[in-house]
């Protein structure tokens, strides 16, 4: 019966995802070769999104919202993961990751407003 309790937990997840994606984008956009430490959390997130049956609901939710927002076909997730693993990152993947980063930022900001009871 918490009025807004849900956002407390989800917020942490979204914040962590947002930080991970932006950390990777910061490397990629500044011409720095990303470390495994920067790539792994994003790959892990994208791989979890690919498995709708076992992904945590918060990840399934994110996947739904990303697909709705950017019209990302299911096959794109595997392509992005492959590019990240091989560090052969195309401009399209950079755009898709930027879109995911924007979505996460928006989600985070929306959740924060609800935490404040607005």
């Amino acid at each position, binding site marked *: *019966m*918490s009025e807004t309790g*849900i956002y*407390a937990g989800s917020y942490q997840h979204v*914040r962590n995802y947002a930080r991970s994606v932006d950390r990777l*984008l910061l490397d990629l956009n500044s011409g720095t070769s990303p470390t495994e430490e920067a790539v792994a959390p994003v790959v892990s997130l994208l791989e979890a999104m690919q498995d709708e049956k076992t992904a945590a*609901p918060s990840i*399934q939710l994110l996947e*739904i919202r990303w697909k709705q927002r950017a019209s990302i076909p299911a096959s794109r997730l595997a392509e992005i993961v492959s590019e990240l693993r091989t560090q052969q990152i195309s401009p399209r993947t950079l755009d898709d990751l930027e879109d995911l980063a924007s979505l996460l930022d928006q989600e985070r900001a929306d959740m924060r407003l609800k935490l404040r*009871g607005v």
Partner: protein
Amino acid sequence: MLDDYLAGSVGQLLERARHLQGAISKQFEPEFRALALTCRNHVNSLIPDLQNLLTDPRYKKPKTQGIRLRAYKLLVDELDFIECVGFAALDRINPEDTLMTRLVADIAEELMYPLIPPVVSCQSHFSSYFHAFPALNLLRVPLKEGHFLLHLPDLYHELGHFILTEQNNPVVEPFLKAHTSAATTARGHMAALLSKPTRGPKTTQQHLLAWTTCWMGAWATEILCDLFGAFAVGPAYGWGHLHLCAKRGGDPFLVETSPDSSHPPDEARMFVMLEALVLLGYHKDATAIEAHWRDLHSFGGYKSNADYQLCFPNNVLKRFVEEAFAGYQAMNCRCSAPNSGCRVHDLLNEAWKQFWVAPANYSAWEQRKQSDLFPKA
């Protein structure tokens, strides 16, 4: 522009962080020390990130300014959060906070709760009611809630939220798996509706997409926490939900069409609670609560509707109950039972019995029971 702006603003935030650290540099009662430590560590972790905004050479590239601005906003939010929630709780600790924190610890012990119980701060804002902050292991309740018994069953619901946000903990995994499995069932139900060729106008499809989003977000979580509450404290939880809806609820069948809906309809929540009570053997209590619940519908003129039936079929809701019960039991948490011998559990259930036996005398009875709720050590 961003360089100049951040040079000024980040400098100010760093000073604010130092002020916060100074404010909690004192002794706290044992229950509050973990929160103080969490707040201190969290602020300390933000300081290097704030400094990086000014010094990291990657942020000097034109292509990274958007990322830099997002990082700045995120850090501002984090500092706001820790100040407004964590530090605010520590700054105002009073005897009621201490008593409520000890009460939740007693509840946790009674039900063999697998996590460290949260600190309670009696300072909910008007719209917040009971509010869990798992990242801080903190729970906010309304200012005077500790003086009254009828809404306290909601504490058990909030304890469910802390479990659902726990990570890397095998003890609570069964409940997390129940959450995932039940939510995936709901998603499958919505996917089947979306795939039907005769699904109707485009608006219906948009609603189905929004409801899928809600199921994967707040709805599944809230229902799992309701079930945690019902399994833990029994009929008192069902009565508490009826009480909350009578005081503050609207149409219990209303299915919001926003993908950001924070709670499922109250009818669906009550349905799973009653199913849970029957599973626990509380048949008579479930019947009594349901009868009063239907009366409330009648007084309010509320009736089921097509959206509700589409979105919350009984088979999906029953799956939640089955999954949650298995998950709850696998955590070895104590299930509610009549006269369990658990002080808080039995008192909250006795309160609802007294409420209906002699409504006019209830308030006086409740005040006499304060010492049972908060026995002196």
